[in-house]
Every structure is written in C-alpha cells, then in structure tokens.
C-alpha cells in the first residue's frame, strides 16, 4: 500500500506561496488558518532556501499521541486525519507537532480556539467521501477522486512533491542525480564514505 508523503525540494522552492493559496482555494480554508506555509531560511543572503511545510503525516505522530480525545486516525495510505466532531480544540496537537501543522480558527482568550484544522493531504475526513458534510469540515477529498494534493499539483516549480513516498522519493533522487553532482554536491566522503586526512571521523553533514 502506498504511503503518502511530501517532499519539498528546497533547491527549487521559490517561496511563491502557490501551495498555500491552492490549499485555501481548494478547501475554502478561512483567514487565519494556514494548513501550509512557506519558510525561508537565510533570507536575503547567499544560501537562502525556502521550504514549504504542512502536516507531514508522521508515522509515529506526536499529535495523535497527545490528543486527549483520540480524534486522530490514519488512513491506509498513511495519511493522518482527524475527526472534527470529536476534537475539543485543546491545542495539544499543536504543542506536540514539530512542524506547527495544526491550526485553529481562533486565538481568543479563555482558550477558545475552535476545532483544529490541518492539512488532510487532501483526503477529507471521516464522513462519506465527497459528501457535503466532509467538504464543509475538511475541504475536498481529492485522493478519493484519484487526484493528488492541490498544493503539490499547482506548485509553481514542482518543488513540492506529494504522493506515494516511494514514487516521489524516486523523482527527487532522480533530480538530485540529474543535477549531475553526486560527489560534487555531497562531498566525496559523504557520498562514498571514504576516510581521508583532515576529515572529521564520519561526522559529515
């Protein structure tokens, strides 16, 4: 069974935010809720890279582990979804998530947050696939329609790959190879593990 994953190729991502608005558009996500966002590191200096991030659909998902009401579940494709009817809006998933994926429609006092919303890998929620109820709570269910996530499909540079982990890993590996820079990129030692003088013992980065 395919396991759905995202890869964002930081060599390609140009912080165009298409993935962000594609998601807003497809799922009618309200203002203030960003299922996906783009972060630029080393902004404005050589070495600048941008990365688009949403829920990573973790294998051992911290959000799932801390949810007081167990409203998370995982689909056969490895997509981590949740049930908004059950969610109590406690925010714990957002504390636990390393990527800041869970979002809340409000950030009010008295701990009022509304129900958690996050990237569904465009796979909807527990309601019947493609139903109006599902759309209203979770947005579209593209996977059920046989489509891949809107964000990845519309990515301006195809930096963002979303789909079966094996397939996208292949694409990505191919790309890295095609950049023609195997040893050049990673350093001989890193690529082939030879030990040489002046090379700190395997502590390659």
């Amino acid at each position: 069974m395919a396991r759905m994953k995202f890869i964002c190729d930081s060599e390609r991502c140009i912080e165009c935010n298409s993935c962000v608005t594609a998601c807003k558009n497809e799922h009618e996500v309200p203002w203030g809720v960003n299922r996906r966002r783009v972060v630029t590191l080393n902004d404005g200096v050589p070495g600048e890279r941008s990365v688009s991030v949403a829920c990573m659909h973790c294998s051992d998902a911290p959000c799932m582990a801390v949810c007081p009401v167990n409203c998370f579940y995982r689909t056969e494709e490895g997509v981590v979804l949740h049930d908004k009817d059950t969610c109590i809006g406690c925010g714990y998933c957002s504390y636990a998530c390393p990527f800041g994926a869970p979002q809340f429609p409000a950030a009010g006092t008295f701990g009022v947050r509304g129900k958690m919303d996050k990237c569904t890998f465009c796979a909807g929620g527990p309601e019947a696939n493609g139903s109006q109820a599902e759309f209203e709570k979770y947005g579209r269910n593209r996977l059920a329609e046989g489509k891949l996530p809107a964000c990845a499909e519309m990515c301006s540079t195809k930096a963002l790959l979303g789909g079966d982990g094996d397939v996208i890993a292949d694409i990505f590996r191919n790309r890295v190879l095609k950049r023609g820079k195997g040893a050049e990129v990673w350093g001989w030692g890193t690529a082939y593990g030879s030990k040489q003088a002046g090379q700190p013992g395997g502590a390659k980065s």
Partner: protein
Amino acid sequence: QSQSSTPAGGGSTATPTGAAPGAKLAPEDLPPGQQQGVPGIQGQNIFEVKPEVKRDASSEPGYLQQNNGQRNAVQPGNNAPMWRGVQAGREGYSSLPKSQAPEAGVLIQEPVQYPGSRMTTAGQAWREVRNNWIIPYGGALLLIAVLGLGIFYFVKGPLGHATVDSGPMRIERFTPFERAAHWVNAIAFVVLGLSGIVMAFGKFFLLPVMGLTLFGYFTYLLKNLHNFFGPLFAVSLVIVIVAFIRDNFPQKGDLRWLLRLGGMLGGNEMPSHRFNAMEKVIFWVGTLLLGVIVVGSGLVMDKLIPSLLYDRQTMQVTNMIHATAAALMLAIMFLHIYVGTVGFRGAYTGMRHGYVNEPWAKEHHAYWYEDIRAGKVPAQRSKPAEVAGGTQAVHTV
C-alpha cells in the same frame, strides 16, 4: 512579513577564514575540464577516482563551520548547514505577520530537554513528559489517593464522635461570607477537577464506554467549562485564601499535633486551634501553593495574561506545570474533601450551615473552644442582622 534570521557571516559566499580552497590543490587533482573551475568544486567520474589521493571540499578546514552560502559555493546543493539550523529551531522568514502567526517562521520546533524527556524537538519532549510521566504517574497518584481514602473509610469509618445531635449549634464556625467564598471555590474546583480529569484521562476510561462522538462532545463541553471556570476559581481562591489565612498561621501545639497525627488514629484527638495542623498543611500546600500554581498556569493556558507571547514552548511548559500541580492538588484535595464530607463527623455541617455545637468544637478544636469560652474569640462573628436573616432557622438544624 515577519522576522528574518541572519546567519552569522551570512553576507558572503567566501570560504571562511584562512582557507583558500583551491590553493592547495595540485592540478592533477582536478578533473579534466575543471582546472579553471570554481575553487573547491571537485566533481568527478567515479571510475576515475582514486579515493586515497582525492580530497574534497569536506576536507577543507572550517568545513563544519561553513554557513549555507559558503557550503553552497563549494558544494552546490549541499544544504546541510541550513538543515542543521532548521533542526536547531532557527527561525526563518515567513510573510505571515507575527501578530497572527508568531511561529510561522519556525520550520521545526527547537530541541529542548524537559525534565524526564530526551533532548529532542520541543513538541516531542513535551509529549514524552506528558505521556510518559504526567499521565501515568498523575493518574496513579489520583487512583492511589482515592483507593487509599476508600480503604481508610472502609477500615475506620468516619472519625469523631460529636454529631449534629450532640447539642445546639451556637458557635459560628464559618461566616456566611466565608462559606460563600468556600463553596464557590469548591464548586469551581469540582468542575475543574472533573473536567481536567476527563481531559487528561478520559480517553482511558470514558472513551471506550461512550464512543468517540459522544465522548468528543462531552469533553468539548467539559473543556469549555474548564476554561471558563478557571478564572472563577482563581477569583474565589484569592478570597478563600484571604479569608482563612489568619487562622492558618502555625500556632503553639500544631507541631505536637502533627507529630502524633492528631492522635486521630488512636484514641483522642489532640487539641488544636480553629484549624488543626493537617488543615493548615492542606491550606498552605494544597490551597495556597498548588492553588496559586494551578491558577497561574491555568490563566496562561487560557491566554488571559496580556502581552504574553503564547508560543508553543510557553504552552508546553505551563501545561506540564499545570498538569503536575493539578494532579498533586487533586490528590491533596481528595483528602480535604474526604475529611470535609464522609471522613469526619460534623465537619460538613459546619461548612454547610456555619455553626457547630460545643461538643464538636471541644472534641476537635479544643484550644479554639477554650478561646471562645474565654471570650477571646467571639462565638458569633457575622453581624447579627445576618444571623437574624435566615441562619437562625438552621441554627438548631
């Protein structure tokens, strides 16, 4: 647009100090056609490589200190320095405003080590503390407390002899104001405690019974009750503390009382002032210390402290404090509630109606009783008007 981070020395693509990357290379080291290439870049056909003589950019001094720009200059596409920054929780640029999304620029939460966790991403560390310590041990503590009290009750039954029947209720133990404050506080506490317990442990004992949807709605309700009762509890707690603090200062005899555990387990109770030493310990530790911690952390989690940045780490830390303190407080309060209800004859009535009879006072708070008798402490502290207005009726029960 929000904060952008600037790596040290980020302005330049030059290799760091002293290292002139190409300089030490013998021309024969360079692959064909690359003799004039960018210094440091040494891509090559792997079949032509003799690993022993090959050096690559990674063997340059300062390699590990390179920033991402410098690394990219010698090894295009190698973003290890950047990813190291990401792993360290370094904040990048995000166009979302700080006011709306304070942490949008952080790709991965910074690693921390909370007491009881590994050094790992903050969220994961929090998860470890909560799921591996607070929930199991907190739960165990509460279970043990409840079980202990149950067994105690089973074995010993209610303590004390004086009952409401032992005489007319003439001594005003708690004024209406004190009682009002106490009960508001108590009710809030019960709501908070129950809802808190359901939030923390409900999925282990309620969820399997109720099913997801119902449990979800139920917990959602409790969670919101918890959020709104918290501030109520905070206010009433302050009043309770102010109202009772005077009579909870240590007094002569308290130490003795404590050492002999009030003598309750065997035979006669030791004399005490208005509150005995156990009540005082519960007051200082359970009500005051833990109460303030729980309230303080609760208010933070409720986002009621103005001008505080409610980022995830703040929330994690306060949650751990809150949950730990709450568990301890619950355990202690179980004792208090036990004593105040089924554990101790007559105590409840005193708090319920305000008045106790002389045998009860004499039995449980001998010094206090003496003070009343001596007129040092008035038997009726609230204004008579109030007495007339209603309490008189319950005076004799």
